[in-house]
């Protein structure tokens, strides 16, 4: 039995094709229309509205709140100023990824962490001996993501009590939409200009209605997970259990990944005297790198087209993003695998997120992507590139 999010009365009415997916026990729209194309382009050219309520949210408060968050995540959370947000993964003691999410600093002694999966027990166990309280506020907060070039204008015209235009990338503001108090963070999962809006569930519908109303002149469109998946791959953003397997769910050791192996090495920020969970293990890994590394791949699109054309087909991989693992070869030997891939409508390229042996994961390295056309396997050349694949200046400015 799937639950309905606080926005379901609106999203349910709009999701004409009943394309739902189970997202953490909630019904989440894959797309509101038969195809997600329009919704994707709303992200890149107007504004798309996503219901992201199924995310898990935790509030951490108390004199040791900063120290606790710092202990949990791999980044320097204690140094995150009030009114700012940071993205960070977190690890187990062995330095293997558990989950990733955003850390909002609400005050000197107050944080909010979003997580993909239930984490109360872990956060509380990390808090042992500290003067900090961890509360699961997942059911107390509904959330929408408004993503796209016009999102700022929509919010600027709607939100009172906060200057939306001055909220920086990964900034946070408290304001009101009509009489509804909201928290707005300039964050998202699309790699575009965008915001996430956090609201108490009883105000969810009012917020939705106000946004849809205010956005009408700005091309706002409710959007589902299919569009989000394409956008997040373009942005080079990882999806838990797809691009990496959490240390908690990995059935075998080799399925686990360290932040380094998942391309999140930049988020590992050792700080003397303030050890975070897994820090010691990651120190060792930094000194002696793993043989695995994360890489973005651009697959040779004309070759894909030609492979399909040779049997008289159009390139059938152009539709939705794929979460099917695909082997990657170099000189006939498997050197890794793709975890997510998609045709990028805006770049007109076929792009993929991959885990490759380190020696094959440097930008410019050439590898081969396995492509199945009419039940026959082929190899198509691909080039390792830096992520994000698509990185518009408006995201930050």
């Amino acid at each position, binding site marked *: 039995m799937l639950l309905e999010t606080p926005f379901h009365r609106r999203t349910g009415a709009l999701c004409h094709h009943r394309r739902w997916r189970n997202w953490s026990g909630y019904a989440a729209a894959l797309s509101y229309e038969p195809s997600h194309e329009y919704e994707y382009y709303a992200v890149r050219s107007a504004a798309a509205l996503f219901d992201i309520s199924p995310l898990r949210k935790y509030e951490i408060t108390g004199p040791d709140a900063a120290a606790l968050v710092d202990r949990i995540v791999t980044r320097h959370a204690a140094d995150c100023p009030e009114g700012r947000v940071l993205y960070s993964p977190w690890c187990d003691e062995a330095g293997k990824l558990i989950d990733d999410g955003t850390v909002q600093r609400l005050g000197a002694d107050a944080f909010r962490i979003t997580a993909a999966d239930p984490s109360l027990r872990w956060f509380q166990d990390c808090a*042992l001996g500290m003067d900090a309280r961890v509360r699961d506020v997942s059911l107390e907060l509904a959330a929408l993501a408004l993503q796209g070039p016009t999102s700022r204008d929509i919010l600027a015209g709607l939100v009172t009590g906060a200057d939306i235009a001055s909220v920086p990338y990964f900034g946070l503001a408290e304001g009101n939409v009509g009489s509804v108090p909201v928290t707005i963070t300039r964050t998202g999962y699309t790699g575009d200009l965008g915001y996430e809006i956090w609201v108490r569930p009883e105000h969810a519908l009012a917020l939705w209605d106000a946004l849809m109303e205010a956005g009408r002149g700005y091309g706002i469109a409710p959007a589902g997970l299919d569009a989000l998946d394409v956008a997040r791959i373009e942005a080079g953003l990882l999806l838990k259990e797809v691009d990496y397997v959490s240390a908690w769910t990995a059935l075998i050791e080799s399925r686990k990944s360290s932040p380094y192996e998942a391309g999140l090495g930049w988020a590992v920020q050792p700080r003397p005297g303030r050890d975070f*969970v897994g820090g010691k293990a990651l120190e060792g890994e930094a000194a002696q790198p793993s043989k695995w590394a994360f890489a973005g791949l651009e697959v040779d699109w004309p070759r894909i087209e030609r492979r399909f054309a040779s049997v008289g087909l159009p390139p059938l991989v152009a539709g939705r993003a794929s979460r099917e693992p695909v082997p990657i070869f170099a000189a006939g030997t498997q050197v890794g695998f793709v975890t997510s891939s998609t045709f990028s409508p805006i770049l007109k390229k076929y792009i993929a997120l991959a885990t490759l042996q380190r020696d094959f994961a440097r930008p410019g390295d050439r590898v081969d992507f396995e492509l199945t056309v009419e039940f026959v396997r082929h190899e198509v050349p691909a080039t390792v590139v830096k992520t994000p694949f698509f990185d518009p200046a408006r995201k930050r400015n």
Partner: protein
Amino acid sequence: MSAYDAVVVGAGHNALVAAALLAREGWEVLVLERRGVVGGAAATEEVFPGCRVNLAAQDAGLFRREIVADLGLEARGLEWVHPPAVATSLTGGGDALTLWRNPGRTRDEIAHHGPADAARFPDWADYLRSMARVLRVALDHAPPVLQDASARGRLRLLRPLLRAGRVGKRTVVELLRVLPMSARDLLDDWFAGEALKGMLGTTGLLGARQGPSAMGGAFRMVYHATGTEACGFRSSVFVKGGVGVLSEALEAAARSHGAEVRTDAEVESILMEDGVATGVLLAGGEEIRASCVVSGVDPRRTFFGLVGAPRLGPEFNRKVTNIRLSGTTASLHLLLDGLPPLPDAAERLSGHTLVAPDLEYLERAGDDAKYGRCSARPHLDMVVPTLHDPTLAPEGRHLASIQIRYAPWRLRSGSWEDGAIRDALRSSALDVLEEFLPGLRARIVDHRLLTPVDFETELGLTGGDEYHGQMGLDQLLFMRPVPGWGRYRTPVERLFLCGSGTHPGGGVTGGAGRLAAREILRDRKLGARLGGRDQT
């Protein structure tokens, strides 16, 4: 620069053993004891005016004789007392069943109760001895490291097995069968007499919260038979002058090798730099630097109290949280104006005097503990140390120290702060005692009750657990103090454990201190070989 090579936290008997053995190797060692006397739970103090009382531990029969020889303790004032009675079970109505140190006398005594049991008793004593001999092999060596996948590590894993194998494969297999059994099952296989079974079953309760039907009781019976001269029961060997004399002899040995021992010096926390222990901070604010810190304090207090959970990983902390620490024993010390009225009292009461008339009595006492309350009719274990050394009390006076089981540290309703609960425990113990030893009550001049909470506050025993962690099969060997950290090391580099919370476990054995010292020395040697960075 470190002032010391090792600072030892706590001056319990294991800590003193470790300190003495490290000092003997030429180390600069400092022992810090919170209390005014050394010994920890093996201390003898003036509880009643002019009387020296063993606060918690009474019997030192498990103390490893190798340590006595190694440290020359007998030349430093240690004198053993082997009383004529090993144990006497009060069977009601002023009757008693005594196990004597003299096997023939024991056999005759049991024969009054059951000739078949009497005939089997010598075999039982041999059997228990042979089991204990094999178990000693495991207890006297540091536990294997399962994580060590190297060929040498694997070989080391086999070594104790091979040693044990020399004793005889059949004995090893029999031990494997017996260890998980309950005291009841083991005893039912041997004896018919309820009084005898009740008496023998009492050692199966030591360090556990369960009654005699609980699995693992047989292990505890064998464990307590690993002492010297055990003949079918625990060895029942005492120290002249009180068990504190043993601790004092250890202190003297440590000092003679150059160790410093400071009492009234409470360690507040362990100092660390980059995950490495560098010394300790005293309650007064004094910092003491050392190349390594050795904690004789129980593991939970060491990790959560002295290191602090936030400085350890959450997964490790879960393990520390999961250590089953639960005190189940209270002590009642009595000052008497004469021996309790029992025929041949001076002889019969010279060992452990037990109220354990049958296994069901113990079982019902254990049931109460299961539901978080004191036993309505507790099992009692009384020692009269003035029979070992009359000078412990003024002339004409006797001391009786009684362990009351079960008195759980965590009460389901009420609190130990509540005087009424303490009074109720005291009177149920005295009522039972009066029933089994009529006339005793009239001899009481003074009394003092120590509850598990008192053990915690006065002796620093977390949860009032005098074993630093229950002696269940799940908390032994490489599982003690926490799984994966069985070799006295900790996640904090250069912080070691040496208390009863580590292998081989509780009781006045000295084994943990001895093995810890050995491992620490080995570790430092290894460090020296790798480049001598341990002398920074």
